[in-house]
């Protein structure tokens, strides 16, 4: 998206070094101990001369994103859909915090940048809109101002309609066994003496 590397001494730099992450270009990477997968935990695209920001989905696991000092005219809230871990966003001061001020614990304008800190769980909001998830699903945060309805324990599938695992082996074992048995018994008692018609 942008050349260069994380600016030395920026918020992302500090965050990355303190959380023992690796700097790779503009990203701060971290390896998950349990799965071994590599996630982006920080993204610094400040001073990049970006005019339009449309797709940041590769960095959806980021905890901190810096978009400051870019000539962006407006930023859609949907860019941050799915960024459930995001707790610190730095934007050019002309932009508002994604999801509005109600989605952040602390928002302030420091000179030329706007800082949004501490994403509020959208599921707890008791304002004029309440997020009701359909049957068999629970609300979970899904980015600033977003919520996802994920299925409850043991429910899965489209619209969380399906529950549990179908015991396919047992059912087909019993069915196959009894079919063979009944067929054999009937063939011996009935058809063995049948004449060709």
């Amino acid at each position, binding site marked *: 998206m942008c050349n260069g590397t994380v600016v030395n001494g920026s918020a992302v730099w500090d965050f990355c070094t303190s959380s023992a992450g690796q700097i790779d270009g503009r990203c701060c990477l971290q390896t998950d101990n349990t799965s071994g997968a590599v996630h982006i935990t920080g993204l610094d695209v400040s001073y990049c001369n970006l005019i339009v920001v449309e797709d940041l989905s590769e960095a959806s696991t980021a905890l901190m994103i810096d978009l400051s000092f870019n000539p962006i005219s407006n930023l859609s809230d949907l860019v941050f859909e799915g960024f459930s871990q995001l707790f610190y966003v730095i934007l050019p001061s002309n932009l508002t915090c994604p999801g509005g001020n109600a989605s952040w614990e602390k928002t302030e304008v420091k000179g030329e940048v706007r800082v949004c800190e501490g994403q509020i769980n959208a599921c707890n909001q008791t304002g004029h809109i309440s997020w009701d998830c359909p049957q068999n699903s629970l609300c979970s945060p899904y980015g600033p101002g977003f919520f996802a309805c994920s299925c409850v324990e043991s429910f899965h599938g489209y*619209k969380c309609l399906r529950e549990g695992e179908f015991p396919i082996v047992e059912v087909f074992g019993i069915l196959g066994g009894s079919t063979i048995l009944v067929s054999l018994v009937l063939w011996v008692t009935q058809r063995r003496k049948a004449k060709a018609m």
Partner: protein
Amino acid sequence: MWPCHRDFLSQYTHHHLVAFLLTFFSYVLLHSSRKTFSNVKISISAQWTPSILNSTLPPYSPGETWEENCLFSDSQEATLFLGALDTIFLFSYAVGLYISGVIGDRLNLRYVLSFGLCGSAVVEFVFGTVTEWMAFYNVYFYCGLWVLNGLLQSAVWPCVVTVMGNWFGKSGRGFVFGLWSACASVGNILGAFLASSVLKYGYEYVFLVTSAVQFAGGVVVFFGLLSSPKEVGLRIDSETGLLPVERDSDSHRPLMSDEEEEEEEEEEERVCDAPPTPIGFLQAFCLPGVIPYSLAYACLKLVNYSFFFWLPFYLSSNFGWPEAQADRLSIWYDVGGIIGGTVQGLISDVLGKRAPVIALSLLMAMGALVGYSHSPNDQVVNAALLATTGFFIGGPSNMISSAISADLGRQDALQGSQEALATVTGIVDGTGSLGAAAGQYLVSLIESKLNWMCVFYFFVLMTGGSVVFIIPLLVGELRSMCRSRTLQTHQL
């Protein structure tokens, strides 16, 4: 006329029992697959539509779980399509019945029956399970599969009735067939049970279990069914129907001379050497009694199937009862039908005539329908009225589709020289299914344009139409009854 209890049972061997049970359960499996399809309609329409919200709220995320499938934009469209699938199925089933009846009289019944069961099972598997596993939802694919399913399922009924007709002769036929025709209702109950226990895993598993069991049934039938007593060397004479009776008459005769024995043996060989030829479709159509009973059955099956399909919907929309309760209540109609078929079959056996019993029952049915339409909002009374209606409508319906078809296909006019049973059964049930298919559309039309009371009057009208078609046969049978009674009094 009414065989002694001992004689009645002694004519039946274990072969009879197995033939009864195999044909019974073949049709049970078929009907249960139809019932499971009806019961999972809500889950299927939920699968085909995105989640519905007030327009002010944003759609649910993640989209894969809530919004992705949009085969139909809302559940009303999906319901319309599912109703259209029912009608398509009934039409292709009706067309298939005409064809399958003809085929059944020409080919080996066991092969046709197994092919129908297994083929239909495979189609159902593709329809419900494969499409879900591959996430392939396509309207034309569904329609095409369901047409194929109707054609394959239509092979079953003429074959099972023919096998039963081969094994069970004229005496006691009404009672045995009445008991046997409970298979449709038992299938409904089994289907409802299967659907309710497997549905929570996903509707695709309901289709999987149903089609697997049906396929297994086809395999068992292939290995275990004897389609006719001739296959094991037993003979059923269509008039007396009993080998033991012949033995009795032998024992009453004086010791036979050698000449007489030889003559008898030659006669038997001649009869066995000439296998019956299958009847032509038009010839079967023109057999006495086929057309009136077919038309009567069309009217009757319309009423019967409309009850089967629409009753839960009527109960929940008219009285506001929840769907599970309405489903359970509709079982009473089936129970009434089972009892009606058996009892009325028995009575018609004792009398020796079927048309008077049917006509009387249908007249009572018209009254029962009117009574049911005015049922109070009380589940017990409603269930009782439902069972009564089922008794008076289901009884004749079961009789016409089974015992009477067997009568028509084995009547004197054929003189044992023609195989007509499957063809006749196909014609009677095919006409009936056309009536049922038309009824599906008409009931929804009348209900949406007028109201439920008019639907019930429509049912009464159809039942009356049934009686009208039977009148020529009724007159003929009453006349022969009176004639035989005057003959008896003259003899005395």
